[in-house]
């Protein structure tokens, strides 16, 4: 009995060390890939600036739209103007976080599979989904929206008096949770690619998924609410972190968000792993 507990303690210790090692390895890899991608980005500098300017313009348009709407009503589904500004800003932040990790990889996935260059991801000693993500880290793609996002969140936050000391760390926690939802959802949708090869349309779905998430989850009722919380979780992505900052978060919604985050990520990873076995590579 004593031996058993000892060995299991030792095992837990080694597993802990292994997890730490894995984290260190992937952080190192992330850094190496990030620099590589930045070097590639810089070759097309003019493109970089255009993207940032365009992003800022787009976000400004949606703020103006909201401003017009709030000229007529005081709140949308209980969200005031300043609260909505935080919501829009949060979408921008989540999106940039996604571009800094996995988003562009999925946009390129269809090409990799059609031309067979996905082979490379199958033979390297890195998980294929992580290699795909890191191969296409993009700083510039959504940078403008992120800058705008931070400005909006700070601006909205300063006009509210609902904050507490915990607000900011909790906000970051729920941002990460949203990223998990987003990643899990992307994995699920993109797993289809191993069966149908063309993925352009698939990522349009993901795009609208993110576009729609700038509306507060509270606008959905009944069946819609269930659908957009558990099945297509757009009611969580921006709404959950924004609810923290605006002091609208309740225990129930917090718990649901985390559960959805964890289950989307784990289902996504599982389905992806199974789908990869169906990869048939391009001949030649």
């Amino acid at each position, binding site marked *: 009995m004593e031996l058993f507990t000892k060995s299991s303690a030792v095992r837990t210790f080694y597993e802990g060390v292994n997890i730490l090692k894995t984290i260190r390895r992937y952080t190192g890899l992330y850094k190496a890939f990030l620099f590589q991608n930045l070097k590639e980005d810089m070759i097309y500098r003019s493109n970089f600036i255009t993207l940032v300017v365009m992003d800022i313009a787009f976000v400004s348009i949606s703020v103006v739209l909201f401003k017009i709407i709030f000229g007529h009503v005081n709140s949308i589904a209980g969200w005031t103007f300043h609260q909505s500004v935080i919501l829009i800003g949060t979408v921008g932040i989540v999106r940039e976080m996604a571009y800094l990790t996995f988003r562009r990889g999925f946009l390129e996935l269809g090409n990799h599979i059609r031309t067979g260059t996905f*082979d490379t991801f199958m033979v390297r000693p890195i998980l294929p989904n992580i290699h795909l993500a890191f191969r296409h880290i993009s700083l510039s793609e959504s940078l403008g929206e992120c800058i705008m996002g931070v400005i909006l969140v700070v601006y909205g936050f300063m006009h509210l008096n609902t904050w507490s000391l915990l607000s900011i760390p909790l906000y970051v926690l729920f941002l990460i949770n949203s990223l998990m939802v987003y990643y899990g959802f992307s994995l699920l949708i993109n797993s289809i690619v191993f069966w149908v090869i063309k993925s352009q349309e698939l990522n349009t779905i993901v795009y609208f998924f993110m576009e729609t998430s700038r509306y507060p989850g509270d606008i959905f009722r009944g069946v819609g609410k269930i659908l957009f919380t558990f099945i297509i979780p757009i009611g969580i992505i921006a709404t959950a972190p924004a609810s923290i900052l605006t002091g609208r978060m309740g225990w129930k919604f917090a718990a649901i968000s985390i559960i959805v985050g964890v289950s989307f990520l784990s289902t996504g990873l599982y389905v992806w792993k199974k789908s990869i076995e169906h990869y048939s590579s391009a001949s030649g």
Partner: protein
Amino acid sequence: MPISIQVKNLRKTFDYFKKEPGLAGSFKSLFWREKLYNEALKGISFEIQEGELVGFLGPNGAGKTTTLKILSGILYPTGGEAVVIGHVPWKREPAYQKQFAIVMGQKNQLWWDLPAQESFTLNKEIYEIDTRVYKNNLDELIELFDIKELIDVPVRKLSMGQRMKCELAAALLHSPKVLFLDEPTIGLDIISQEKIRKYIEGYNRLKKTTVLLTSHYMRDVERLCKRVIVINNGVIIYDGLVEDLMNRYADYKTIRLRFSREYNENGLEKYGNVVERDGLNVVIKASKEDIAKHTAKILSEFPVEDLSVEDVEIEDVISKIFTG
């Protein structure tokens, strides 16, 4: 010598959908599709010893690339077994992935817009190569492949032959024990082809790496390998010494001739088999041994306008194996 690659009764079937031509066919296939099967590998078996350099020869679509892809874990087989340096490839264990490399002639693994050097340093991270080992290997490969001037140029600006050299170097930085090469000379001019062959041969001799190389050029295999496996329609039809294969099935070369005017038709027969005659164009199959002597004689005796000597095509060898 220990066994490096062991393949037993390996099978792979691809399924795909039949689509009728035209828009109507596409529309119909949205609702009803007929599933078809393509047996790419019909149960092949072979063994390769450590340090061997084996050629995998066959026409397009024979199953060469499919075999290589299964052995490197890219594809899951439909049935059968394979063990490479103690690992089942399709489990894709990092411990295995760090010990082999695959280079595909038609696929680019380097970062297109960046100099090859950048891809090399990234590979150092990916394969967790120790800094000192990395420096040594890099110097060695730069020397061996003569790429000192190439590694600082963006990959997209390199010629195909130059790029292939860099591809090879990138794949060898982690000193793999097994190297899979899929058509490494495809699309290259004759001189670059010969260079790549020289590098592969040199590397194999230096490092004793097990190399399995596919090609549909007889020349690749003839020049590089002692042993050859010939595959056709997913079945191995020959496994043995290259020398024997050449002696038995490819002991001739093809001479293509074009004459400038009428010539003595009977005089050609003594230099080889006339297989084709079309006006002033003639194709002769001549024994390999005195090919130089014979062409010299033809040139001096006949009004030759144009002459070329070609190697045997793999398709000819295969049909000869079947007919005996």
